[in-house]
């Protein structure tokens, strides 16, 4: 059985339907990428899994339990942490406080602690007393990732961690991903940057307009298939 799965997941913003029956699953120790253009529903999927949006009880299952209708705080406490799109650091908190607050709802011992986060991103130790939002974009992204790791989550959801960053900075951030995988978390990585996504993931889902249009292992999907799935068949 999968660690995390969605079953015919639907999501709405008022009258607007953003997801139309999405089925994805994530196995223990696996990294899955979700790719797709703007507005494909990737972020909505992340918000639904993390509990920012609530759904039907059985539409999301984690570790065999239905969690679709739980709030973000309860889902986080069970071990699903999210690095939200746009980083969302707390401006009133210092870098170190931003990291520490990551454990508020879940305190379990594991690989990740302030020390190991500082080992992963040494620059953050230097900047520990700065306000979180005084850092560069890449450093802020490191804080956001560290903050999510502090709770030693079983599943880490990364929503567009390369968004708005320079290619050399994106490389720095993605260099950390293998170490996160080794420490034992399963990952869902949402990306527009297909190359980065394929490099770190075992499997890929492609979404268009609220539906999954393509699924496969990273090494078997051809560029053409992804191109079709990404832009819709007509564009090929």
């Amino acid at each position: 059985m999968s660690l995390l799965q969605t079953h015919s997941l639907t999501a709405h913003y008022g009258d607007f339907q953003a997801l139309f029956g999405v089925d994805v699953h994530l196995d223990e120790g696996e990294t899955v990428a979700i790719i797709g253009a703007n507005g494909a529903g990737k972020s909505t999927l992340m918000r639904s899994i993390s509990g920012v949006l609530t759904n039907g009880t059985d539409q999301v299952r984690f570790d065999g339990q239905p969690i679709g209708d739980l709030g973000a705080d309860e889902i986080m406490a069970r071990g699903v942490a999210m690095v939200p799109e746009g980083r969302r650091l707390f401006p009133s908190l210092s870098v170190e406080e931003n990291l520490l607050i990551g454990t508020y709802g879940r305190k379990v011992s594991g690989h990740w602690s302030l020390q190991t986060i500082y080992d992963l991103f040494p620059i953050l130790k230097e900047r520990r007393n700065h306000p979180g939002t005084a850092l560069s974009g890449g450093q802020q992204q490191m804080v956001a990732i560290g903050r999510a790791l502090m709770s030693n989550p079983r599943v880490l959801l990364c929503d567009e961690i390369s968004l708005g960053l320079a290619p050399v900075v994106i490389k720095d951030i993605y260099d950390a991903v293998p170490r996160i995988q080794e420490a034992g978390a399963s990952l869902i990585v949402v990306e527009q940057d297909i190359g980065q996504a394929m490099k770190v993931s075992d499997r890929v889902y492609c979404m268009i307009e609220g539906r999954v249009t393509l699924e496969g292992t990273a090494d078997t999907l051809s560029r053409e298939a992804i191109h079709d799935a990404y832009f819709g068949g007509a564009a090929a």
Partner: protein
Amino acid sequence: MIWIDTIIQGVLLGGLYALFAAGLSLVFGIMRLVNLAHGDLIVFAAYLILLLVSLLGLSPFLAAILAAPIMFGVGWALQRHVLNRVLGPDILPPLLVTFGLSVVLQNALLEGFSADSQRLPAGEIATASVQMGGLNLGVLPLLTFASAILVIVGLNQLFYRTELGRAFRATSDDAVTAGLMGIRPERIFATATAIAMLVVTLAALYLGMRANFDPNIGPARLIYAFEAVIIGGLGSLWGTLVGGIIIGVAQTVGAAINPEWQILAGHLAFLIVLLIKPRGLFPRAVD
């Protein structure tokens, strides 16, 4: 010498106003909620202390210690079951609800305790004084001022040194992202209001020992508290103390010149500060 005495009395009075204001500042800082019933809650707490004093024959200080957990519970329940329902992007509903609460509290107190003026029996301490460098300082005003400083130091420690304080600030910044940290904003808000009611209890203790109170004096205390918070700059607790002191000094100096000018002088000082520094003396950098 008489002027120095007047100013010192004003500074000590400022401590009382800072106590009125600290709870208001705390709640506003965390959830952007302006509690128009704050003054009435202080009066409510004063009657609660009075009730414990007369029923159990306790000193006001002991009665306040008993009243504190009750007020903590009142604050928690009020936030959890009433105010959380109206918090949202629109600031009008919470204003209306707390305004309504203010009216309800005043009338309930009037019904329960009549319009007679009451006072907490402070005993000898009410008239005791100490000699300090040629000045006679009242023990009660000194205690009030020391309590205000303790409250502000305590709240600052809570805000900047504890996990709960981090959660307060994070929730104030961004409640949705705070949820991703396992924080439940409704609980944080309820805890904040409950803590504010502890400060309210302390304010009520000194209010009731210092002067007479009746069910209708809440709104005037609210105005002093507001002025202290705004002079200090929203969100700064030390600023709130400075704001309280400015109003206190203006009132005692005004009263020394002409007793009719006491209240007016305080409000004028507030207006002058607003003219010079519209955002208050110590505005928070963020916002």
